[in-house]
């Protein structure tokens, strides 16, 4: 039995907007055959304001697919089309107080349906191009695509490397045999041309590789480099970097705002039981430099090119 949050159960047992919207002017049909889910999202958009005034859905799918559809319709109602398009699958999952890692794809389907419905409203055609990729690490929800991308981008050679970059295999260890096989297959050329275009665009790849030989997360985020905190925090991190690198880790500044600072820990820092301590140490140094407490937030590693968990 899946461990669903109360919110997921509520939206499953009492789905909102589970209806055919007769006067919809945007319809998106998407499906994921391997997990047996399919969704039709219907939206009614006011052409003058571009505001979504009503939404309805029909879903063939599991409990979390139905709950994600229900949540999505609630989230987009009252928003403009552009605002709605900013909703990520992680937002949908967060709205539901989280989904089990194996079920995150259910929220992806909701987001895809939204994009399809908006394209339909705008009279554009929409082609879903992502390649479904088998889930390898169930503990951290890491799929084959993400592992292959990381092996390719960082020339990873060992299971330990893969764990450091993706977390996969870092908890129960049940998937380490599979990771070994992926590594073996990759270095024998078995993934040529696979999991490249669909997930990480080539130019981002090359840009990142030219920069530091790694795919950098900062390429996925809008960065506020002109914010007064940016240089101060960057300086703190620069000072700490040699120490972290000595232990096989690294830290990257992703973005700053008045009320939070986004950073990412790399390599050995990641999944290390010391990372909590590292983080509180970084926090203390940052607070000192800024003269006030601005909470650090850890950005999870994600290289699937969308800036969202997958």
């Amino acid at each position, binding site marked *: 039995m899946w461990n669903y949050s109360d919110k997921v159960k509520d939206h*499953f047992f009492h789905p909102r907007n589970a209806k055919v919207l007769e006067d919809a002017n945007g319809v998106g049909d*998407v499906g994921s*055959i*391997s997990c047996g889910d399919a969704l*039709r999202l219907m939206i009614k958009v006011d052409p003058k304001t571009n505001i979504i005034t009503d939404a309805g859905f029909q879903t063939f799918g599991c409990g979390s697919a139905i709950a994600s559809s229900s949540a999505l319709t609630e989230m987009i109602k009252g928003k403009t089309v552009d605002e709605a398009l900013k909703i990520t699958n992680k937002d949908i999952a967060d709205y539901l107080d989280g989904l089990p890692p194996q079920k995150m794809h259910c929220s992806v389907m909701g987001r895809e349906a939204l994009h399809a419905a908006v394209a339909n409203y705008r009279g554009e055609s*929409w082609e*879903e191009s992502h390649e479904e*990729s088998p889930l390898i690490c169930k503990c951290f929800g890491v799929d084959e695509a993400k592992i292959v991308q990381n092996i390719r981008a960082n020339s990873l050679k060992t299971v330990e490397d893969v764990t450091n970059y993706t977390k996969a295999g870092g908890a129960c260890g049940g998937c380490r045999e599979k990771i070994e096989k992926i590594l073996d297959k990759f270095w024998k050329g078995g993934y040529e041309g696979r999991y490249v275009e669909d997930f990480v665009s080539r130019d981002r790849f090359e840009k990142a590789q030219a920069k530091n030989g790694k795919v950098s997360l900062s390429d996925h985020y809008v960065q506020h480099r002109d914010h007064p905190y940016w240089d101060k925090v960057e300086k703190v991190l620069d000072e700490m970097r040699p120490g972290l690198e000595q232990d096989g880790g690294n830290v990257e500044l992703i973005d700053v705002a008045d009320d939070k600072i986004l950073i990412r820990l790399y390599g050995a820092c990641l999944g290390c039981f010391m990372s909590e301590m590292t983080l509180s140490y970084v926090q203390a140094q940052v607070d000192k430099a800024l003269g006030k407490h601005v909470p650090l937030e850890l950005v999870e590693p994600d290289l699937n090119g969308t800036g969202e968990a997958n």
Partner: protein
Amino acid sequence: MSEKRTVYLDNNATTMVDPEVVKAMLPYFTEYYGNASSMHDLAIEPARAVAEARHKIAEYVGAEYDSEIIFTSCATESDSTAIYSAIECNPEKREIITTPVEHPAILRVLDHLEEDRGYKITKLHVDSKGRLDLDEYKKALNSNVALVTCMWANNETGNIYPVTEMAHLAHEQGIMFHSDGVQAMGKVDMDLKSTDIDMLSFSGHKLHAPKGIGVFYLKRSCRFRPFLRGGHQESGRRAGTENVPYIVGLGKACELSGQHVGYMRSEIKRLRDRLEQGILAKVPDCFVTGDPDNRSANTSNIAFQFVEGEGILLKLNEYGICASSGSACTSGSLDPSHVMKAMGIPFTAAHGTIRFSLSRFTTEADIDYTVEKVPEIIAELRSFSPYWRKDGSGGSESFDPNYGQGKGAEFKK
């Protein structure tokens, strides 16, 4: 909150331990706790009890000798024992024949042998009712085959496979034959001494004994290599201290199961048919999967079209009804049932398959309650399924979603 009723219709997953079995086991935890292999008085009763259980089980399966019964920890261990023994005994033979509807305890081991050790794994085909074609099987048998392994009864559909005939055909060509008998125990006539079945696996927890005890039947004439080596237990064929209380429990459970074979064939079958016909009469667009003419009496697997199984299970669970599904979403692996896939069940139906499996503890009231609840659950879920059309024509032709490419695309027509 009022007390939730429990209707347990998931007996192919596991069964309640019969209170009589528990009673038989208890003295062997605290009173007769000795190691059955020891030389002192405390070994006497455990050793006697193990011998008695072995005898009961040998009778239950129709073994010629008690020593053909080897105790293991579970049927999965027994399955691995059979496969690895067969390939070690026949190192020059590089092929194994099986079916696509086996339990993962067989299929994953064979996948491993195929991928990592270069074995040729031949999976026979099944038709839309899950039946094998014996002509295809006869043609597949050849001198390179180390083992044929075929389940006796299928866990999802209850289908019964012609293992006696298949074993005979294998022996004609000097090929070892193993059967996973987990779902057949207490449901089919079993007289192993009159068959050519060399090895058989089953476990206790499907027949009202506890989890954690299994049997590996090994015909005396069959060559063998142990899976677990170590102590001299089980005549050196399966090392590890005898799990005395569980062995005693399994002996008792087999004795009770043997007494209930007739009840299974008549009363349980009647209840299963009542459940099935009740649902089929009240719910449109559903059908029984597998082979209704040749399946175990306790199992009914119904495909509800245009709805997905996990949703059905969650709603059944709200009513306290326990069943299981071939839907992708109910397994940790997210793969849809390989059994439904092998039978070519369309995915909009395969994902909506629900397995109801009864036991001798199932009552008529349980069945009537389930027949009452299922139709409303299906109607509710269909009311917002994009594939469903209310005019009863079933399915929406206008719904043709855009599917992601890659894995699973072979499902797409």
